[in-house]
């Protein structure tokens, strides 16, 4: 009798557990309709369109002045925090250096679980032991690691549900990107452009970790585009895919940007356009087959990865996709066929003085690096870089962090050796261009015109958030978190966080109260109204 009652109780409990579990699931449909859940931030850019726009408006141009810090979470990690947190139903999920992942109570910043991937001692990631965030789908969050694993963690416990090895870290492959969860797939692009890897974008079954497709960003023998590589240069051609793409449900296409051909500072030995480096790729989400591509910088010799987030919006009935590119031009494309609509300079550039028949800026011959080196603008860090941009449907403006900096680009022959840095020389800061200047710029995509700019004290790596409250949020190198008027660019509020910003802000709400959050220094900060 007693046993039966107990069994019944267990059954009831289990059933309740099932129900809770089902409600907590982050389905593909929920992410697709993220606008219906403005309190959540369920994917890297806030929505599949890449807008980094929060539809919340409690914090607005009137109330922004009252913002206060609500909590700070110290990650205990040193180095750059590039993470974009996710927030689902009151729980915040984020990452930190050396492939830490954690879940916090989004109201208080108190940890719920912590995970750290055991990394081998001999990894040598290019640009810091960084990670840009997680993807979430159903009851799992997904992490790409510096030793090129893709890992699924239980959202409730942080336990590893599956762990697959995508590539060999010893020859330079790694993951730093926040994956993109689409349908039942986890899409992820590889890093390693500094090592002469052969770049790829992978899709894994979210339930099992089985790889469903791989798109090599450097075509192999017999594939279209292979002829754009001289000799065997394709084998070490680079074209990594280290920043998060976006997804268009109407056409079931993933838009994913790619990085520099390798070696980054030497074009000799890889004659040709070097497809699909520095391109935007439109891939069928189910199969990974390419529908179209657009190459921003052909045969790049300046390390101008085109890995910036591609952002979708519609204008006068046209379905568009735009990218503020590292090479200093803001490109607007038709997203059905990848046809170029406009390319406008949004920063200081000296590398191009004409456009081809399609309207694409063409590199001057004399912009090529030389043995002794000479100055080209933008510098190797680009007019922008990985910092996430934002688009505000209310102002119809595109917001991007930009820098004016020029570098001396030099080139030298360098043999490829597996696992060794493969740059073909290097760049040096050019004194001619000092001081280096940093801005937040508001671009009108219809005209390419800069509507306003806010000059920082020095260039920053902070991303941007826009909100329905008429605000733009960004950080700076001096440690400030700043709220600006989205229409005019006037700073309305700031808070000194005590650490430089390399991450992008997000917006969310818990218990009906709006928050904005950003990583700076070694911590994650959340702000709200008193």
């Amino acid at each position, binding site marked *: 009798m007693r046993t039966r009652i107990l069994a019944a109780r267990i059954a009831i409990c289990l059933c309740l557990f099932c129900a809770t579990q089902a409600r907590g699931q982050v389905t593909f449909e929920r992410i697709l309709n993220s606008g219906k859940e403005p309190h959540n931030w369920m994917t890297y850019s806030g929505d599949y369109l890449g807008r980094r726009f929060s539809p919340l408006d409690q914090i607005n141009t009137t109330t922004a002045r009252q913002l206060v810090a609500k909590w700070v979470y110290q990650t205990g990690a*040193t*180095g*750059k925090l590039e993470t974009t947190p996710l927030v689902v139903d009151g729980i915040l999920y984020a990452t930190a250096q050396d492939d830490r992942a954690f879940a916090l109570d989004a109201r208080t910043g108190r940890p719920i679980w912590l995970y750290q991937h055991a990394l081998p001692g001999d990894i*040598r*990631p*290019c*640009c*810091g*032991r960084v990670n840009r965030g997680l993807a979430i789908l159903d009851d799992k969050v997904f992490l790409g690691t510096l030793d090129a694993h893709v890992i699924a963690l239980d959202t409730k416990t942080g336990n590893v549900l599956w762990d697959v090895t995508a590539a060999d870290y010893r020859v330079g492959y790694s993951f730093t990107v926040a994956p993109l969860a689409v349908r039942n797939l986890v899409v992820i692009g590889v890093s390693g452009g*500094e*090592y002469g890897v052969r770049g790829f974008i992978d899709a894994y079954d979210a339930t099992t970790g089985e790889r469903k497709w791989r798109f090599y960003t450097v075509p192999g023998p017999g594939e279209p585009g292979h002829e754009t590589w001289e000799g065997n240069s394709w084998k070490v051609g680079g074209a990594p895919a280290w920043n998060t793409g976006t997804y268009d449900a109407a056409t079931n296409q993933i838009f994913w940007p790619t990085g520099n051909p390798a070696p980054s500072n030497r074009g000799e030995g890889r004659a040709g356009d070097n497809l699909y480096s520095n391109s935007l790729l439109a891939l069928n989400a189910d199969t990974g087959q390419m529908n179209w591509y657009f190459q921003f910088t052909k045969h790049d010799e300046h390390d101008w990865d085109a890995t910036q987030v591609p952002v979708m919006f519609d204008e006068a009935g046209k379905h568009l996709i735009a990218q503020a590119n590292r090479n200093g031009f803001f490109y607007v494309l038709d997203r059905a066929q990848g046809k170029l609509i406009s390319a406008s300079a949004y920063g200081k550039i000296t590398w191009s003085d004409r456009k081809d028949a399609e309207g694409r800026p063409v590199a001057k011959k004399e912009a090529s690096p030389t043995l*002794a*080196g000479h100055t080209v603008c933008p510098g190797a860090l680009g007019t922008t870089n990985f910092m996430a941009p934002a688009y505000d449907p209310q102002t119809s403006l595109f917001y991007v962090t930009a820098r004016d900096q020029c570098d001396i680009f*030099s080139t*030298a022959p*360098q043999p490829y050796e597996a696992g*060794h*840095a493969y*740059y073909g*020389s*290097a*760049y*040096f*800061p050019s*004194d001619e261009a*000092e*001081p*280096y200047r940093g801005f937040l710029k508001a671009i009108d995509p219809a005209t390419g015109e800069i509507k306003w700019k806010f000059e*920082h*004290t*020095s*260039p*920053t*790596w902070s991303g941007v958030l826009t909100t329905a409250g008429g605000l733009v949020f960004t950080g*700076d*190198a*001096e*440690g*400030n978190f*700043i709220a600006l008027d989205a229409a005019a660019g006037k*700073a309305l509020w*700031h808070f*000194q966080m*005590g*650490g*430089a910003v390399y991450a992008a802000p997000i917006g969310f709400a818990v218990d009906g109260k709006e928050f904005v959050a950003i990583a700076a*220094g070694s911590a994650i900060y959340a702000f709200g109204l008193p």
Partner: protein
Amino acid sequence: MSFVIQQPEVVGNRFARKRLKRERPPLLSVFAGLLLLAASAADAADDRNPAGDAKAAAAGEYEFRINCALCHGLGARGGGRGPDLTRAQKKHVHSDEEMFQVISNGIPGTAMPANGTNGQGVGMTDEEIRQIITYIRSVEVKAGARSIGNGAHGKELFYGNANCSLCHMVEGRGGRVGPDLTAVGGSRTREAMIDSVRNPSRRLAWGLTEPTKEFPQEYETITVVTADGKEIKGVALNEDSFTVQMMDLSEQVYLLEKDKLRSFEKSRESIMPAYSPDLLGGRDLDDIVAFLTTVGAK
């Protein structure tokens, strides 16, 4: 109100700041490592720098270009940012093992970053570091450094007629408005020091180098007018979009909020006068540089 603010050594590498992020081993473990290395150096023949190996030197040159040339210049001849490594006499390094440690771990208190943290290279393996050492040894000028100038006379000028010490400190003596020059002789080439005296605005000196900030503060000239109409002119100690911390010529420190100022102007014209050959002859300048070089080598 006057604050004494300790100026960090002015040998900044702006790019070193950018990604000065990898955890540095605590000093203690560096020393422990040194001891271990010293103990094991005799039997660790394979780890020894392959001196004179042309192939290793060539490989080291690639690595040098990627990892070191940013500050130490192409050919290791130095620049405005880092010392000339072709000089046989180096301040921090004598043996290959010391060089290995310095490249691996950086030099605390200077802009020399630990391996892999200069923001440009990807970090080197031990083998690659040893190739770089071979390369540096291959380009060293074997003869002792040419000695130009009379350091004793330079010292007299520095603290006397040339007026350098009105603004600059060396070994605890002098002013605070300009950078402390005690260490400058060890980290700058002679040419870079001469250029800084002749053309102080060409490349402003780096001041505060916050580990969290990509670009260190420079000695920019700041002129403000406060709300009550007082004009203050001096050098920036630090600045962000909303505040400025500055020192005027009488070494007063001011902590100001920009939105409370009537005006704020920043200029890259250095507050230091350009010393033309009429003001300071070539031989006298050589003497001052000789003085700074002698102090900097200590």
